[in-house]
Structure formats: structure tokens, C-alpha cells
């Protein structure tokens, strides 16, 4: 009888191993984020967090909801593929509340695309700043929404 009993030190060892494994199992279940492994070996909720950022640019579609007249004008001319917010700046706040104005336009915006640079494609209309009516403002002669027309 005596010899077939499990030695008490072994019982203690088995209990200790079970305790360690149990702690590990509980820790793993509880500390692994719920969405871990949803799409791959990472936290699925990270996608939600990346998508939760506030919008700053509204997108051209949102502009079209109110400014369809300007769109009609723009569609006939060379600037038809230029997005509204390229010049008018981020407009999400304006789209939600029309009292918030968009950024003030200056000739600097025209120059950013139209000043001469050897790296620009030849099809791009380019001017040399010191030769092309340096004392006048761009909109003195040009209509930004219909660049083929002049005042």
C-alpha cells in the first residue's frame, strides 16, 4: 500500500505546474485584445481606430451639392479636372456649416502650378514671373474658373 502512493513532493510539483499553466491560460484569454486575429496577426480594432479620424477635405461631390452653377461653368473649360479644394483648400467645415469660409485665394495659388519649371510637362501652361505682367494680379486678366476667357 505504502509503496504505490504518489509521493507528496510530486503532488506538490504537479499542483504548482497546473497553477502556472492555469495562470498563463487565464492571462492569455484576458489580456489578448478581443479583436486580435480578426483579420490577421494583429488587433482588428486598429482598423477601426485608423478609420475614426476626422475628415478635413470634403471631396468634390460635397461641393457639387450647392455650387452646381460653378461646376457647369468649370466643366466647359481647361480647369474642369482641377478639384475644388486644390485651390479653395480644405472645406469639410464649410460643407457642414456654410458660415465657415474657405481659405482666401491669392495669386500664389496660380503661380504654384503655372510658374515655369524645366521639370514641368510641356503641355502645362507656364509663365516666367518677371516677364509675364509682373505688376498685375492674375485675376486682373484671367478668370480662374474659365481660364480660356479673359476679362
Amino acid at each position, binding site marked *: 500500500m505504502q509503496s504505490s502512493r504518489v509521493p507528496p513532493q510530486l503532488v506538490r510539483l504537479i499542483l504548482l505546474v497546473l497553477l502556472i499553466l492555469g495562470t498563463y491560460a487565464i492571462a492569455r484569454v*484576458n489580456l489578448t485584445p478581443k479583436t486580435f486575429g480578426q483579420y490577421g496577426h494583429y488587433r482588428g480594432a486598429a482598423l*477601426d481606430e*485608423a478609420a475614426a479620424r476626422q475628415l478635413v477635405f470634403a471631396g468634390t461631390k460635397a461641393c457639387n451639392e450647392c455650387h452646381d452653377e460653378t461646376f457647369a461653368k468649370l466643366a466647359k473649360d481647361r480647369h474642369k479636372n482641377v478639384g475644388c479644394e486644390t485651390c479653395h483648400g480644405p472645406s469639410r467645415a464649410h460643407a457642414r456649416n456654410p458660415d465657415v469660409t474657405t481659405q482666401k485665394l491669392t495669386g500664389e495659388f496660380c503661380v504654384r502650378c503655372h510658374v515655369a519649371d524645366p521639370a514641368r510637362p510641356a503641355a502645362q501652361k507656364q509663365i516666367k514671373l518677371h516677364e509675364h505682367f509682373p505688376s498685375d494680379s492674375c485675376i486682373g486678366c484671367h478668370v480662374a474658373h474659365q481660364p480660356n476667357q479673359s476679362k
Partner: protein
Amino acid sequence: MSPSPSRRRVLGLLASGLGWLASMPLARPAKAAVKNLLASAGLPPGYDPTKHQWLICMDADKCIGCGSCVDACKLENKVPQSSGYFRTWIERYIIKKPAPGSTALRGEAVVDSPNGGRRGFPPTLVPREEILKAFFVPKLCNLCEHSPCSQACPVGATFDTPDGVVLVDPTYCIGCGFCIQACPYGCRFMNPETHTAEKCTLCYHRITRGLRPACVEVCPTQARIFGDLKNPTEKDPLQEFIHKNKVFTLKPHLGTEPRVLYANIDKEVR
């Protein structure tokens, strides 16, 4: 010397630790409920990342180097305003003519990107008669299929999403900077405020809501072409771009398999 802790005390500590662990399943939903009340929703309802495959491509022949994309990216993603932090930027390549009498095919390539090209480019110092050719190249994350940044991250904070974007989980990122060194395209930086690695997310908050990335939205010449490979539209600009152009990837010898395709770039572009 203090007496060694009694068995009772050790067992008590162990039990309270286990109790704390066991109470976590209750604490987590409570925390999530509070978080949901405070923050706006994440992925918009109905958006399934496994049903999309986003891609952005570049046509260097169309880029005029105006810097609208760089500016828009900074504003949309609240990228640190100071120079040196960019999720996208523009490089100007000026290839010089070979020196007279030399047998070289072409001369030195002068590459600059002042402030990422955010406010356009100042006149180049290279005299016009020395220029063989010149062009702009917009750069951003190459969305590699075998992304070295994900492989280098020791904590698994960088990963590929099912819809084709490489993202950083800022709650996992420890700010070690290995990914910044690993990226062969220089597309990552350490955010000086959060001390976590940051990169282009392809405007994940916009594309999941059916909008285009901010840089694509403002590009006046459609040099950036964006689309969904899994849901091509009728006159899909991305499909058209891929079919019509002879396209390249950057540094193909590294085996990173970039998904971003470039048309009309030259051999000097890295």
C-alpha cells in the same frame, strides 16, 4: 533584515492577482461602452475590409510639382507641420547632359525636394542648357506585398490590412524606429508628439467612407490614380492606367513587391 513573507501572505497575493485577472472580462465591456460613447465610430457600418483592394498609382508625366498633395496630406492627417515629416512628398529629378567629350550616356542626376515640395519648387540652379531632361516624381508608401517594415517590427505593430494598406497600430508601437530604418523608400517617420512610427494610411478614414485620399482629391492633373481592384467601376481610372501604361515599381531588386506602380519614370528614380 525583514522577515520572509509568510505562506498565507503569498497565497493571498496570488489569489487577489487571479481575482483581478478573472474580473477583466467584466471590465472590458464596461470600458468599451464608455469609449463608444466618447469617440466617433470606427469603420463605417457595412464596410468589409475583405471586399476591397485599394491601390494608388503615379503618372510622373502628369505631375507638375505644385505640392498640393503634400499640403493636403499634412492638413488631412495632422502630420507635424515642421519640415522633415511627410507621408507623401514630391522629388524633382534633373538629369544633366554628359560632360563634353565624355562617353557617358547622361550626366549627373540632381534631385531635390525642398520642404517636400509642399509650396512648389524654387527655380533650379542648374542652367537650362545643361539639362538633358527633368521631371517630378510623387512619392509615398509603396504598399509592399512583402513589406520590410512589418517584418522588422519587434512587437507586431505594423501589419497589412485585407484591403491592401500597411498600417501602424499606435497602441502597440513602442517607438523603437526599426521600421523607419527598414523601409527602403524612406516613407516612415517618428511622430515627435506621440513618439510612435507614422506613415501613409492611404487616408484610411476617407477610403472606407467612399472618398478618395486627400492627395488624389486635390491633384490638379490626375497624376495620382486611385481605385479599388476588387470593385472596378465602369470607366475605372486605375484599370485604364494599368492597361495603357508601361509601369515600373521602385527598387524591384529588393523583392519588396511594391503595389504602387509608376509610369514614365526614368532609371535614376530610386
